[in-house]
């Protein structure tokens, strides 16, 4: 029974992807991408990866679609100039890639090799319940701390696109400037719920599916909603308070990492016995930084010609 559901889901997923890629109008492709993201998150739930499904819906399809939809108005669409021959050739190449990959997937060695056993054996040492947060924050902490740096770096890259003097301007908030009544109502009704859900996801992330990326995405969405409702003004890129909050996550994570050297014998090691509290403090700080960085990334470079 469930195989039939998975088969249907797989077909739906490919159809949604075909719609995103094949349609000629970018706006239709972007809205199609949102639907594709939802189905992809369902696929992740079927692959027993709930944390990834949360991240995929919040960041992978939600924020990505907003960023692209907002940019469509500013970007002229060039006429498609690809000949039928080129389309056929590239189509053939991509079909070969898919077939090759499918053959590889079907030919994977039978005793599936995995590190699940090692993770299970070492999880008690981390004091955490959620194995994925354990891998992210303890076993592969370097990837995660660099991850927060990469998000901050993308934001610095977006700010670098604007000449120095215009950096002080406020980025254009989504929407048409004056905030319509339903958005204000939505903000008042939804934001408190969203903040609670986001905070819960971060807090519970240590033991149940959730975590800082998912929580940060929900909080970022609430921040954007507040800005669209005009309750909160978008911060300017040169605002020192904003920059300090953007830095608090990565720098605290690095500080804990460095402190790990004398206390736990190696860089990015957590003081034995106090892993969970330290990890949760670092997660909360990272959530604030990543959430703000996501908001500023969606808002885009300051002083943009808002339509």
């Amino acid at each position: 029974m469930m195989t039939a559901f998975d088969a249907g889901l797989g077909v739906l997923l490919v159809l949604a992807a075909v719609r995103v890629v094949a349609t000629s109008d970018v706006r239709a492709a972007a809205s199609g991408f949102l639907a594709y993201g939802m189905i992809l998150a369902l696929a992740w739930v079927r692959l027993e990866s709930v944390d990834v499904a949360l991240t995929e819906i919040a960041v992978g399809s939600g924020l990505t679609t907003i960023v692209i939809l907002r940019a469509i108005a500013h970007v002229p669409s060039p006429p498609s100039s690809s000949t039928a021959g080129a389309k056929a050739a590239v189509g053939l190449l991509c079909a070969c890639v898919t077939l090759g990959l499918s053959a590889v997937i079907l030919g994977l060695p039978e005793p599936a090799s995995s590190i699940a056993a090692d993770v299970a054996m070492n999880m008690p040492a981390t004091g955490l319940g959620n194995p994925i947060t354990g891998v992210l924050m303890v076993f592969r902490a370097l990837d995660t701390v660099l991850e927060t740096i990469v998000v901050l770096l993308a934001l610095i890259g977006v700010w670098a696109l604007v000449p120095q003097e215009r950096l002080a301007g406020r980025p254009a908030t989504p929407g048409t400037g004056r905030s319509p009544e339903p958005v204000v109502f939505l903000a008042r009704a939804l934001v408190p719920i969203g903040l609670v859900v986001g905070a819960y996801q971060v807090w519970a992330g240590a033991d149940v599916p959730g975590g800082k990326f998912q929580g940060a995405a929900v909080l970022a969405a609430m921040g954007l909603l507040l800005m669209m409702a005009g309750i909160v003004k978008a911060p300017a890129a040169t605002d020192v308070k904003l920059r300090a909050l953007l830095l608090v996550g990565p720098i605290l994570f690095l500080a804990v990492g460095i402190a790990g050297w004398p206390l736990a014998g190696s860089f990015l090691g957590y003081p034995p016995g106090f892993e969970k509290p330290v990890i949760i403090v670092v997660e909360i700080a990272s959530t604030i930084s990543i959430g703000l960085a996501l908001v500023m990334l969606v808002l885009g470079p300051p002083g943009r010609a808002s339509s």
Partner: protein
Amino acid sequence: MTGSIILALAGAGLVGLGLYGVIMRENALHRILAFNVLGGGIFIVFGFAARRGAGAGFAADPVPQALVITGIVVAFSATALATAIVVRLAAARDEEHADARSAKDEG
């Protein structure tokens, strides 16, 4: 288990479709969308590797799941940076056309 194989094959399909979109699409934003489809396909294949590696009390191997979460956030940062460059490029082209036209009017 066979269900996840079908999803993995769908993931392989996404990789092919995404690659087609990245190569063929002229509109930069459309190409960025195709990038995300391609990335989504690759992560689904990684998720399938995780599902196969289930064991020791986990329904799926946690290491690939953690890496996919990191990958999704990196992919979003790349999308945001690429979109900002595309918008800035369109604005810069408009400014230069405007300057060229005004220079032509004076000339």
